[in-house]
């Protein structure tokens, strides 16, 4: 790495601190002792404050332990685990075919990405190559999901900052996308649509019109968001220069997705480590400049536009063919065959009771979810269930940037910072 590049990256020393770190490394007992003790701090303005886990701006059940001086945040600690249901343990008891139903419940705002990572990892272990149409359907659905997830961010971010009407607008547009998902997968959320071997069903009749309709209605609404938010002096004042991170700090903290890109560091797995058919479509990687809350907001808004650009190309180039692999090992026989062939019935029964066996080995696959790198690590012992399934949740890791972003800021800015990190607690706690 050249010197000029290092200069550009900035100094990461701030995040390496063990003493005087902005991370409040206290456990419950120690914090309680401080709260109950009037002599704990020399300074009268200093206190330990609890925020959450049920707070309108914590996006679910995130709890923050804050050390405050007046209204200024000195140190903080995200306390998580309120939604922990042991999904990685659950996965060990489910077959590979059932596995997608489990992972889809992690990041509930972008469920298709978890299904995709899980399916790609399973296919890697099986050594399968899926048909082109399945690949492009996956890409179409994932990009639409990125749009719906970022629309949800626009809604909640607006509300956290006091633009309450954004809450309604963002939700309204997201619902249009979810309506299409319901038509394709049968469900608005938790689709279980992307499965090892392809997708669950072909796109329904008339899907082109539905997608064209989405491409028509969303861009003018984004223009409205610009009027309501991007150009608003009050809105900008709340976000600009708040929660700043430099590229070196983001790299050291393993932050990915819009948080890393907001610092001006262009890293997007779709571009730099292409999976599916992202190397065949044209799109831009959106980056920020200052690494503040405003950059993170603007990146997500513009990523909607880039995703729409990709969807338009997919619409023109969707290949014909099978929507799932015709490999007897992982694909159940067509329903009509079961009535006439005993072998088909046995085959169907085997796949849905025992499941298919996956060769012994281990593999890690990563995809670019709306929140950053979503990885899936699977270890197989040759049986029909994963021996170990681990999801690398982007929100879980990104949450570590919170104390660094909030250090020295006001508590009202803390709300803007939490919102701009956009954590989905289902995936943080798993």
């Amino acid at each position, binding site marked *: 790495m050249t010197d000029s590049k290092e200069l550009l990256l900035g100094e990461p020393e701030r995040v*390496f601190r063990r003493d005087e770190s902005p*991370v409040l490394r206290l456990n*419950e007992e120690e914090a309680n002792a401080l709260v109950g003790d009037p002599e704990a701090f020399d300074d009268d303005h200093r206190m330990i404050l609890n925020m959450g886990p049920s707070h309108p701006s914590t996006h679910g059940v995130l709890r923050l332990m804050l050390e405050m001086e007046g209204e200024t945040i000195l140190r903080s600690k995200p306390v998580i*685990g309120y939604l922990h249901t042991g999904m990685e343990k659950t996965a060990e008891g489910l077959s590979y075919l059932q596995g997608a139903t489990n992972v889809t419940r992690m990041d509930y705002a972008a469920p298709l990405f978890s299904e995709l990572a899980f399916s790609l990892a399973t296919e890697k272990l099986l050594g399968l190559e899926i048909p082109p149409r399945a690949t492009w359907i996956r890409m179409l659905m994932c990009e639409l999901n990125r749009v719906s997830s970022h629309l949800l961010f626009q809604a909640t971010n607006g509300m956290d900052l006091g633009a309450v009407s954004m809450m309604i607008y963002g939700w309204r547009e997201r619902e249009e996308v979810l309506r299409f998902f319901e038509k394709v997968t049968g469900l608005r959320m938790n689709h279980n649509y992307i499965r090892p071997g392809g997708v669950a069903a072909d796109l329904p009749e008339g899907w082109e019109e539905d997608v064209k309709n989405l491409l028509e209605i969303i861009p003018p609404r984004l223009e409205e968001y610009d009027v309501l938010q991007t150009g608003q002096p009050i809105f900008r004042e709340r976000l600009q220069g708040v929660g700043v991170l430099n590229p070196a700090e983001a790299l050291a903290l*393993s932050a*990915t997705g819009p948080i890393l890109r907001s610092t001006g560091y262009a890293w997007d797995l779709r571009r730099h480590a292409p999976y599916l058919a992202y190397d065949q479509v044209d799109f831009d990687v959106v980056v920020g400049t200052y690494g503040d809350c405003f950059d993170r907001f603007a990146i997500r808004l513009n990523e909607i536009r880039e995703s729409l650009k990709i969807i338009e190309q997919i619409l023109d180039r969707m290949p014909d063919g099978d929507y799932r692999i015709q490999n007897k090992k992982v694909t159940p026989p067509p329903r009509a065959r079961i009535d006439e062939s005993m072998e088909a019935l046995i085959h169907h029964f085997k796949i849905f009771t025992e499941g298919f066996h996956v060769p012994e*080995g281990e593999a890690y696959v990563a995809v670019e979810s709306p929140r950053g790198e979503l*990885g899936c690590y699977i270890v197989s012992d040759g049986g029909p269930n994963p021996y170990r399934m681990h999801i690398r949740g982007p929100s879980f*890791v990104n949450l570590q940037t919170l104390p660094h972003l909030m250090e020295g800021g006001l508590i009202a800015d803390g709300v803007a910072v939490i919102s701009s990190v956009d954590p989905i607690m289902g995936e943080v706690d798993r």
Partner: protein
Amino acid sequence: MTEEETVEETEDLIQEYSGPTSYGVPVTESHGQTVLHLMPHELLETVTLLKEEGFCMAIDVTAVDYLTHPGRKDLPDCIKPERFEVVISLINHSQGTRIRLRVQAGTDDPTVPSLFDLFPGTEAMEREVWDLFGVKFDGHPDHSRILLPDSWEGHPLRKDHDVGQIPVQFSSEVGRL
């Protein structure tokens, strides 16, 4: 067996090992991905080397409990399989390459050095591995549970920790019901 004996034994094995190595440790390939196999005492040195090489981010830290596994066939001969394996993924942005480190962390008292001083982003991931697997990280700045309450007993992702046998615990309710 003491730790020194284990180290000595591994070093003997490594001296006899003639397979491919990379960064001074045995390397294998798994589905097109590079995997390094190492012992806990080699971890910091290897990761420092990798970081200088351009591996700028520790993307993932997790662990696997191989208690009920029929036996790993993908380990090089010189690596003695242990029950717990810590799996670390690093990424090199300038070359777009990834590397995976499989650390044999031990069986009875699994311990590996913490990577905090090299990659502070591993702090939460290492806490998660401690919480769910009971693997200790030497030199971690906040060695505590992260997903489960502090009063929780056991490490649920261990293979000898069965599902469905633990009643739901509410620490504040103890003595009140």
